[in-house]
Every structure is written in structure tokens, then in C-alpha cells.
């Protein structure tokens, strides 16, 4: 997965979102050590201070834990990750519904389309 940034919002926020996504996808598994700030910054091609700020956000969200000796690890608390995943799923569905609503469909229509799409698979 590449790092991409949009123009309209601070980069650290976008970094925090993309890091969260990586954790939820299991790219950085629960309990594993995150790469050091400088390395992550170089990977994403961003300023280390910006990466630092994104990681601070992850810590605040409870997804990352700072250790005194070994840098940062992904939380071992499975509940935190599960909750974050649910939230992400909810907001994805909400986003989808919003688009359909803008197109003039009702929630019932949306359900029909989702079922139809699932039956194709």
C-alpha cells in the first residue's frame, strides 16, 4: 500500500488514518513493534515531526503503546482493535449510504442493491 495524501487536510491526520488502516488490516499485527519514527517517516516520505504527531494520535486512540525502551508497539488489547474495526466499518457503510441518498435512493433500495451485489459473488 502506498501513502497518498489529499490537498485539503493536514498531513498528520491523513497519516494517522492510514496507519490505523494498516493496523486494522493486520499489516502491523497486534503486539508487534512499529518501525521507528524516522524509518516510518522516510517510508512515507514525510517529515519525522509530522509522523511523530500521527503516532501520538494513534497512542491517544489506544491503538499504539509507547514503551520506554523499545519504541512503539501495536496495542495487545484486542478489544481496542475490534472496536476500531467496527467503527471503520460503520463509517464505510454510512459513507456508502450517504452517496446513495444523494443519488435519490431510499434506504430500502440500498438494502436491495447490497443483497443483489452479494448474490453475484
Amino acid at each position, binding site marked *: 500500500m502506498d501513502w497518498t*495524501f489529499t*490537498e*485539503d*487536510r*493536514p*498531513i*498528520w491526520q491523513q497519516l494517522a488514518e492510514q496507519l490505523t488502516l494498516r493496523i486494522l488490516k493486520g499489516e502491523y499485527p497486534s503486539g508487534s513493534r512499529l518501525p521507528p519514527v*524516522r524509518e516510518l*517517516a*522516510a517510508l*512515507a*516520505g*514525510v*517529515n*519525522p*515531526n*509530522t509522523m511523530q*504527531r500521527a503516532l501520538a494520535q494513534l497512542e491517544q486512540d489506544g491503538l499504539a503503546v509507547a514503551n520506554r525502551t523499545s519504541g512503539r508497539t501495536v496495542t495487545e488489547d484486542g478489544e481496542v482493535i475490534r472496536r476500531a474495526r467496527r467503527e471503520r466499518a460503520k463509517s464505510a457503510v454510512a459513507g456508502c449510504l450517504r452517496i446513495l441518498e444523494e443519488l435519490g435512493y431510499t434506504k430500502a433500495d440500498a438494502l436491495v442493491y447490497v443483497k443483489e451485489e452479494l448474490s453475484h459473488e
Partner: protein
Amino acid sequence: MNELLVTCTGVVKRYGNKPALSGVNLELGRGRIVGLLGPNGSGKTTLIKILCGLLQPTEGAVLIDGQTVGPYTKSVISYLPDRMYFADWMKATDLFDLFADFYKDFDKARAMSMCASLGVTPSDKLKTMSKGTKEKVQLVLVMARKAQLYLLDEPIAGVDPAARDFILGTILTNYNEAGTVLISTHLISDVERVLDEAIFLKDGQITLHDTVDNIREREGKSVDGLFREIFRARNYEGGAF
């Protein structure tokens, strides 16, 4: 150690009657990557040359780490000019020796390993190197120092986008985190993600100096977008671009 790394007070530079800088006030802290942004002819190079002691300001004062420009400030500044500066008969390793001789903070082992990762053979004569390779050598010389202040004048101008990422990556992975990096450029979209702060220079004056996050939050657009907006009028006039 002084808290502020760079302080410019009322810096004016005139070439003859032509003003290049008209009253620059600037304060830079430590541990930042700062973009000095402006179209060609806005005074970026002049300001950088004043900071590294290649030019004397007509008026005003410059302090670096609390000292006026001189041998001490030169010993803590690592400067990448917008041109080649070596004598042709030298090898890259000769230049490393020279830097190791004159700058206590030059790390020759790191220079060699940077050469390896950049694909430069340091035992080659500079005369035989391509322009791109020479530019890499110059970047190695500058980034292999553990300097307080890095002054990089248009480090990514005139190279293709792939090489730009490469150069920015080299800068990001090698700079001294306790020091500050000042990058002058007019290619803002390429450097925006690596910056903490942005300085807009227009007609020899600083019109904006803020953190990139603040600018994005306040304006709802990227620094590049804001820059284009501010300097657009100039574009249409067929000015400096």
C-alpha cells in the same frame, strides 16, 4: 546554546539600486524542516547566501546560534549551493578528506555508505562524472555532516520526479534531528510533505511564515494550492516564471 537558531532583523540587500531583500525579519527554531518558497527572483538565494556568509547584507543583522556570521557560524552550517563548486582534478574521496579536515561534524564513513546507496563510486575523478552524479556527490558532502543548520538551495530543481523523491529521501534519512533544514524551492508540491514550516517570500519580503499543518487547517488547502493562489497574478503577467 541559543534557543533560536536563526534570527534575521530588518535584513535588506540591494545590488546597486535594485533591492533583492527589503526588510526580512525571520526567526527559526531547532529541529525543523522549513521550506523557503517563492518564485524565481523573489530573493531565496540571496537570503540563503547571507545566512551562509557569501553575501553581506546592506542593512540589518543576522545571528546564527546567537553569533554573527563568521568562522563559527560557517562551522555549524552545511550549505548546498545551486551550482557545482569543485575543482575538477579531485576525486570524491579527496573532497571527503577536505571536508573531514575542515568540518569536525563530517562523518566520512557515513559519506561512503551514502555513496554506496546512491550508486556513486567515490574513487572516480569528478571530471569523469556526469552532472547528475556530481550533484549526488555534493548532496553527500552536505548531508554527511551533523550540522546545526542545513541550507539547501533548490536541491530538486532540474532533476526528474523520481530523482526528486530520492533526494528528499536522502535528506530525510540523513539530517541531524537536532538541527534545522532550510530548503529553498519553487517546486512546492514535491516538498510539502517533508516540511514542518513554510516561508513565503515575495519580492524580497516574507509574506507568510507558519507551520504547514496550520496553513492546511486554516486555509483548507495545501501549501502548494495557497502558493499558486498568491502568486497567480504574477503568472498571468508573464512574470518571473
